[in-house]
């Protein structure tokens, strides 16, 4: 549990030049860990994931994947570093079939494409049964499963998830979290951004609380859940 998969040092980034949302965030994800990032709206949780994925420019600080610096690497190359990413919205290709979604997900693979596809179908029978269906016709929960599968097909070592429970029914949320748990147990580290802070923290090994683009608190998931400062600020009375 000791090897560091992702290390962020003082990350500063934003959508517009000279207007940084993130103002120096530090974060570490170790092998096989589930780490969650919580915080109020506008704290920079999703922005941090986008910065790591190269979707927005990092103007200060650095990050390392398996000890090697990858700051501002082109987005399409990050996948090859073993990082999978599921965005919060637009997380599937609606006009493509489920099978095509998974094919696009495995774009960076050469030979094992078919083999990995079959493994995904074994893992998620729903996707196999409906592989010729357009992804746009799936329900929110099914889309989230497809989005997870699309990101998993390259066999990443770290999965970045941006609010996987957003807009889902309680039943679907349980299913999605159970899948995330299975993924983690298969050896994949998870970095999770969640609005549902209680759920995220009780599910995670460690958590980071961000506030206005900076680290506010960090610690074990359970400790943060019971930390009176965090409760006062973000969780409300338990």
């Amino acid at each position, binding site marked *: 549990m000791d090897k560091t998969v992702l290390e962020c040092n003082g990350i500063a980034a934003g959508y517009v030049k000279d207007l940084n949302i993130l103002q120096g965030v530090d974060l570490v994800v170790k092998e096989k860990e589930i780490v969650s990032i919580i915080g109020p709206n506008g704290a920079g949780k999703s922005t941090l994931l986008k910065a790591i994925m190269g979707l927005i420019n990092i103007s200060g600080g650095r990050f390392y994947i398996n000890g090697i610096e990858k700051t501002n690497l*082109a*987005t*399409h190359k990050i996948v090859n570093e073993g990082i999978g990413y599921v*965005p919060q919205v637009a997380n599937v*290709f609606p006009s493509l079939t489920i099978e*095509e979604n998974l094919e*696009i997900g495995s774009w960076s693979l050469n030979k094992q494409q078919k083999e990995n596809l079959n493994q995904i179908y074994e893992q998620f029978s729903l996707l196999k049964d409906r592989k010729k269906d357009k992804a*746009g016709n799936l329900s*929110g929960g099914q889309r989230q499963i497809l989005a997870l599968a699309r990101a998993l097909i390259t066999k990443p070592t770290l999965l970045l998830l941006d609010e996987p429970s957003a807009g889902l029914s309680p039943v679907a949320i349980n299913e999605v979290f159970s899948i995330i748990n299975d993924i983690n147990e298969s050896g994949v580290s998870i970095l999770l951004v969640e609005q549902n802070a209680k759920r995220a923290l009780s599910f995670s090994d460690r958590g980071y609380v961000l506030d206005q683009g900076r680290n506010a608190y960090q610690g074990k998931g359970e400790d943060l859940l019971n930390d009176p400062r965090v409760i006062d600020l973000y969780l409300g009375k338990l």
Partner: protein
Amino acid sequence: MLDQLGNGLLLGIIISVASVALSLLYGVTRIVNFAHGEIIALGAIATLFFSSPIDYRILFLDKFSPLGLNFALSCILAVIVCGLFGGLLELILFRPLRKGNVGNIAVLVVTIGLSIFIRHLYLLFATGKVQNFPLELQRRQTYLFFDMTPRNLKVLIIGILVMILIGLLLTYTKLGKAMRAVRDSEELSSVSGINSDNIILITWISSSMLAGLAGVFQATINDVRWNMGFLILLLIFAGTVLGGIGTSFGAMVGGLIIGILVQVSVGLPFMEGHTEAKNAVALGIMIVILLFRPQGIFGQKERIS
């Protein structure tokens, strides 16, 4: 009315090829390209330049002599020139605009400006004269129940083959799937490992090559004019919208329908002596179809969640 069907098919295939090109570009980049007509004209003007006899001195302010190349080779070269031109537009203009997050409406206005600019360059360099490709005249013949020249039949067949090829490319190849993926979401494509800049560049090149081919077709069937692309631009938009915006198959069928409607309407009894109003009938029918099928003939309604 039926005697206009051959002409309708020919206009239809021109509009159809050009609509697919427009739809492909719009689908992947969300750019409504008003300069599309100028790329069409470039295909025709370049073919004229490559193929006209060396002593022919109408083009380019009388300063440059044409190359006098073989006609088929000229057409191929012209289509390649259009592809390169489209690629250049993406690299020096549209990519920087995209990276600067310039909005869709602003980009649309840029394409209108570009269209006017290029069109008047043509007027300067290629003159305002109506010109013809250096091809001998052919007599019309009857094929099934269509009347057309053997050369125009060739245009029709090549057009249909190109359409089938494009359809297969988009549906089954890795590149086609990547184009459709970038169309759905550029961001999600990138995080899946696709270099979306490359896909958009390839889209510009392919769309411009198709537009150039439409120009070659149009000039082969009719003639070369500096504003020839602009004159049919509205029909191309109509074909694209009618088929369902962003669906290439829809654009193929939509373009064909518009072309046929325009020509066939010439044969309507009340149109006698008013053939210049033929576009009105086709565009009117388009509006009626859209009232009943707002997403276009082949556009799909999608679940939004």
